[in-house]
């Protein structure tokens, strides 16, 4: 389990907190999306969990262990923050070096499988300096997945990938996280993909966690009426919208709601609406 408790971070010379009192938990087999506009604190949060930056206040527990108090808590965490590698070593050597310094030599024989999984099997002996950005991103993913991690922290994993790459990544992550009961936190601006992958969403706004849960993606019916909807007369499952001649009707109560609406109003138009993560984020 990943637990973040009252985490705050203020950089030296910064005027405001990059993270302010952020708390959440991620359980086994759970994939959590992290969204927020640029500068909201997503990367700061991820770098804090990875111990690359040292937060001003609060604590982070990985399986109950406070990462500040102990070292090598992240040996079982796969990380992709930026696709950076030692340019003078081949793709294979980069992964082998990573496994060796984290005492995971036993997984060296699996490097080729991981490279094949991310589509870089034929490029194992090439240096990352010869790679395109998308290939570097794939190698970054290989680095995060090699050595059987139990947790994943991925920052913008879809950036630079072509549509096939995105599709591959989604299926790899779905398979890995669900099959191995991993915990994953994925930050991305590609909300459609995040929507496909994640069980839950965290929304950061100016360093504060403003939403932690499952956004409402249920389908609704938008109904246009012949006259303004009277707020005083509440019908279950019916919500008035800004344009008062239009109401939103929940699919759960649709039969009863429509029957009651038709007592006082004439329906002049109907449209279905499904909320998306994108819409949720903008709202």
């Amino acid at each position, binding site marked *: 389990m990943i637990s973040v408790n009252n985490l705050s971070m203020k950089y030296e010379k910064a005027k405001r907190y990059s993270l302010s009192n952020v708390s959440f938990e991620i359980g086994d087999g759970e994939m959590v999306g992290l969204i927020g506009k640029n500068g909201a604190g997503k990367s700061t949060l991820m770098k804090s969990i*990875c111990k690359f930056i*040292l937060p001003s206040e609060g604590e982070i527990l990985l399986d109950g262990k406070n990462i500040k108090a102990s070292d090598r808590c992240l040996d079982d965490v796969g990380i992709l923050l930026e696709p950076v590698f030692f340019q003078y070593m081949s793709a294979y050597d980069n992964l082998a070096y*990573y496994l060796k*310094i*984290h*005492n995971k030599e036993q997984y060296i024989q699996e490097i080729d499988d991981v490279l094949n999984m991310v589509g870089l099997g034929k490029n194992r002996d090439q240096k990352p300096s010869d790679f395109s950005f998308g290939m570097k991103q794939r190698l970054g993913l290989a680095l995060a997945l090699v050595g059987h991690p139990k947790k994943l922290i991925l920052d913008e994993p879809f950036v630079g990938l072509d549509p096939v790459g995105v599709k591959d990544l989604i299926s790899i992550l779905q398979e890995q996280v669900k099959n191995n009961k991993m915990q994953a936190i994925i930050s991305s601006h590609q909300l459609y993909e995040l929507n496909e992958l994640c069980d839950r969403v965290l929304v950061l706004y100016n360093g504060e966690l403003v939403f932690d849960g499952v956004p409402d993606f249920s389908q609704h019916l938008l109904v246009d009426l012949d006259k303004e909807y009277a707020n005083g007369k509440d019908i279950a499952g019916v919500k008035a919208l800004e344009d008062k001649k239009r109401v939103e009707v929940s699919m759960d109560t649709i039969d009863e709601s429509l029957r009651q609406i038709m007592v006082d109003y004439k329906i002049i138009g109907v449209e279905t609406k499904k909320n998306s993560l994108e819409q949720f984020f903008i709202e």
Partner: protein
Amino acid sequence: MISLIRNEIGKIIKRVDTRALLLLSVWPLLLSVLVVVKDDVFKMEGDAIGAFEYTNYMVIIQNDIFLPLLLTVLIASVSLYQEVQKKTIYFYKDIARKDILKAKYVSVFSMYFLFLFSYILMSFASYYLAFCHHSMATGTFISYPTEVIDMLYTAIQVILGATLYIHVGITFALRTSTGMTIFGTTMFYMFARIVPNFKFLKLVFPIGYKEVLEVTAHPYMCSLLLSLLVYAVYHAVIYYFNRRTFERMQFN
């Protein structure tokens, strides 16, 4: 920890800057090649010398040239400053920062000592391959037994001094860009070279201790022990501050 150091050395040795440093150790052998095509390479006057004296001069001259030291500082800068800047430091995840720093220290100093060891071997090889046929060579290993201690003393002082330059280089590499690191270390090198000539600064670096301790029964031994102590204190203080800086560093 041992595994981390071993892998760090294995990684650093793959770099071009490290290979350039090790390549410099071949320099004495170039003299052997030159002597084949040009017979007046060794234009020297004075007493004939043995392999030991020859190698000793070679080591002192090479350190005077400063190039190996500068390359070692460059290696330190790539290992520290550039790894933090380019974020390859993320590879280490949450391995204790003090262990990462130790591995970097050991790998950088190992490369310098590997260069030095190779350079000494090459100097001996150069002596026996080429120089021993020259009129200035005695062909023996040691030609002046009475001066061995003096020469060895100077060589040890030069090498101890070199470790301090490298450590100062690491200090810059933790805090500033590669260019500033080279600049700062060069400034320090120049400062260290002129300091022994000032009476009031003579004892800042241990190279001048022998003269002061000549009144004792064993000036070399006393001076060497005192030098080791002073260098140990310098290294310990610099390491303490470097470790503190590295442990508090934000890898943004």
